[in-house]
């Protein structure tokens, strides 16, 4: 029963995707119905898991070759993730119905979102690393497809390619890890022990690398900024709430497998990314890019939590962050429609024109900035508490917390600030659903098609940002892990960080230009990757190409040339030697035959004459012998 429910959870969004693809103008509502229906089994799973239920529905693939179990499973972690994905999915699809209300290619986008929901459910419900890898790759592929949704935007295509290539390159680590794990442990099931030696090292490095790539951890974070070229609902669902969280999910899931130095590495990566992402977010000029930097920073915090031995805290922050960040994105989507842009310069005063959307954005921002009593405050406090064993990590987390307050306060000030008359009237470009009016045109804002749906969705997530602070303890109980304790000390530290961050905004605006430019350019991560990965890879490829051309090809060509030469000399021998001999013999025989045939005149008297002469010759011989 539960096993069937698992498959239904995955199959329902997939079917809904197909339905939405062909639904035509009603695609928004069809997709919403599909996503809503898909949330039912997901929540049923969570209820079942809360009741202590656990299930697994697998089949053995390639039984003859040792066999690998492929299938889905239900356990508390999977159930929580599944419910989160389904819920955020419903809200985002609701929002997307409004966002794409005037877009003729809405079925494409909504179908893609629902298909993504299906594979994401598969990812979180996967049983065993092989199944996980399958859905992991499908998620990456669908992500690239959704980023490249806007065909007129060259940056969208470039961003999709960058996202796909970056995550694919990191996924190579996953493959290596799986092969090493199978070679060392003989199983790909969750809970396997990390083999010792080099194989164990490969498993650890590979899985951490894969998690870093999917979760956009430094220095691989640049693809997430590029992915912001995609539609805003896609950014909300994939690039803030669910898909990028898959790396964190992998760390939590592989808690036992990665215990020891791999988690230590992941923790350092997460801590550094948290600070770096904050710095990057502080310098961006595009609201969505600010949010993207914020996402990498928050995901880094989750890495720290998972690495510090508090997976429940990481999961808690994941859920809280999903609600807050998705809410901010959805509000940004509304602003984007109103102003036709997500540039901060274009959005100045947009919050004043649309106070409802600004309220949703502000609640999300307060939560992410860890202002009590919003949800992320509790989770981030728990992270600080969990990281107590690592003073350096605590310091970095606090800096990141201050940074989050700063980089969220900046766009909030811009959105809520005074409108400034802009030089250019209407904004060209942007999404298909262009802006509907000049800044300050509140009537036009209210009349925006689909705004109601978008607002409802934003409000739902705002509610989540307010309420989800209480789920920390239940989550820990559900996962059978120690409940995070909120100490007064950590609360004080968090508040102090927020205050410092608020103050830092003013300072940051006057930061040294070199530092600001570096942050704007993702701290030169692209350049670093180019130098460390791209150049050596291309150089190695060129070297191999030369080896291929000069060595292998030359050898093959040489063999061919040698064969040709041998064949030619063979032909010479045959033509000059054997053929000539045979021909000469034939000519000789022919000449002899021709000569003999001249004797055969066919005239009787000549035969008679020859007979007489022959007889005379015989007689002469006889006479000679008689005489001697």
């Amino acid at each position, binding site marked *: 029963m539960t096993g069937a429910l698992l498959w239904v959870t995955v199959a329902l969004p997939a079917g809904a995707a197909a339905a939405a693809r062909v639904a035509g103008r009603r695609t928004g509502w069809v997709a919403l119905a599909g996503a809503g229906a898909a949330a039912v089994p997901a929540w049923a799973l969570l209820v079942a898991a809360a009741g202590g239920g656990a299930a697994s529905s697998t089949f053995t693939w390639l039984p003859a070759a040792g066999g690998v179990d492929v299938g889905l499973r239900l356990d508390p972690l999977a159930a929580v993730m599944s419910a989160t994905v389904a819920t955020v999915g419903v809200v985002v699809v609701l929002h997307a119905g409004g966002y794409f209300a005037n877009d003729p290619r809405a079925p494409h986008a909504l179908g893609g979102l629902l298909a993504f929901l299906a594979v994401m459910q598969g990812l979180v419900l996967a049983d065993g690393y092989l199944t996980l890898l399958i859905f992991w790759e499908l998620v990456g592929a669908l992500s690239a497809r959704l980023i490249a949704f806007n065909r007129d935007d060259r940056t969208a295509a470039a961003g999709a390619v960058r996202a796909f290539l970056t995550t694919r390159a990191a996924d190579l680590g996953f493959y290596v890890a799986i092969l090493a794990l199978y070679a060392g442990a003989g199983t790909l099931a969750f809970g396997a022990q990390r083999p010792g030696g080099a194989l164990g090292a490969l498993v650890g490095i590979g899985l951490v690398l894969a998690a870093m790539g999917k979760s956009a951890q430094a220095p691989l974070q640049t693809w997430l900024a590029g992915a912001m070229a995609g539609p805003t609902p896609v950014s909300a669902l994939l690039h803030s709430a669910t898909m990028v969280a898959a790396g964190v999910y992998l760390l939590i899931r592989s808690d036992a497998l990665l215990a020891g130095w791999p988690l230590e590495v992941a923790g350092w990566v997460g801590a550094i990314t948290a600070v770096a992402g904050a710095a990057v977010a502080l310098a961006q000029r595009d609201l969505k890019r600010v949010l993207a930097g914020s996402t990498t920073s928050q995901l880094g915090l989750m890495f720290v939590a998972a690495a510090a031995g508090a997976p429940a805290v990481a999961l808690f922050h994941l859920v809280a962050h999903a609600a807050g960040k998705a809410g901010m994105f959805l509000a940004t989507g509304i602003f984007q429609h109103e102003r036709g842009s997500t540039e901060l310069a274009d959005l100045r005063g947009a919050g004043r024109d649309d106070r409802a959307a600004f309220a949703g954005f502000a609640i999300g921002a307060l939560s992410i900035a860890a202002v009590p009593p919003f949800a992320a405050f509790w989770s981030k406090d728990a992270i600080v508490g969990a990281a107590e064993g690592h003073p350096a990590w605590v310091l970095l987390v606090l800096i990141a917390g201050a940074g989050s307050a700063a980089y969220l306060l900046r766009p909030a000030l811009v959105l809520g600030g005074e409108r400034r008359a802009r030089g250019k009237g209407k904004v060209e470009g942007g999404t298909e659903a262009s802006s509907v009016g000049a800044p300050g045109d509140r009537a036009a804002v209210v009349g925006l098609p689909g705004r109601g749906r978008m607002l409802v969705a934003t409000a739902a997530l705002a509610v989540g940002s307010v309420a989800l602070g209480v789920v920390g303890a239940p989550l820990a109980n559900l996962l059978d892990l120690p409940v995070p304790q909120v100490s007064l000390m950590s609360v004080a530290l968090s508040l102090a960080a927020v205050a410092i961050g608020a103050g830092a905004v003013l300072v940051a605006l006057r930061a040294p230009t070199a530092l600001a430019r570096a942050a704007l350019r993702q701290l030169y991560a692209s350049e670093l990757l180019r130098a460390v990965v791209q150049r050596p890879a291309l150089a190695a490829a060129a070297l191999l190409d030369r080896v291929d051309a000069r060595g292998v090809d030359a050898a093959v060509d040489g063999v061919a040339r040698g064969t040709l030469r041998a064949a030619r000399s063979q032909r010479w021998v045959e033509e000059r030697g054997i053929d000539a001999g045979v021909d000469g013999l034939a000519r000789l025989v022919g000449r002899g035959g021709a000569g003999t045939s001249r004797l055969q005149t*066919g*005239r*009787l*008297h000549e035969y008679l004459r020859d007979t*007489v002469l022959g007889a005379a010759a015989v007689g002469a011989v006889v006479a000679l012998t008689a005489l001697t």
Partner: protein
Amino acid sequence: MISLPVVLTAAALLFAIGVYGALSQTNAIMVIMGIELMLGAAMLNAVGFMRYAWPDAASGAFFVLVVMTLMAVEATVGFALVIAAFRNRRTAELDDLTELKG
């Protein structure tokens, strides 16, 4: 008066005439005639030997008998061949019968 070499010389001349006839004639029957003459020369030889060298040997006479038989047989087969050739070719001219030319 008459001795063995004289007879043999006469036979030799007759034989040469037969050779000339067999070689020079275009007609098959004329060729057969030449051969008859050669056989006649052979008979003359036998008679000469019988008369002047071995008068008591009757085998010489017998040899002549055999040669005469041979002449008859040769003429018979030769004429039969000429008839067959003539039937098929409408000719007995040897120059026209050159199918054996190589």
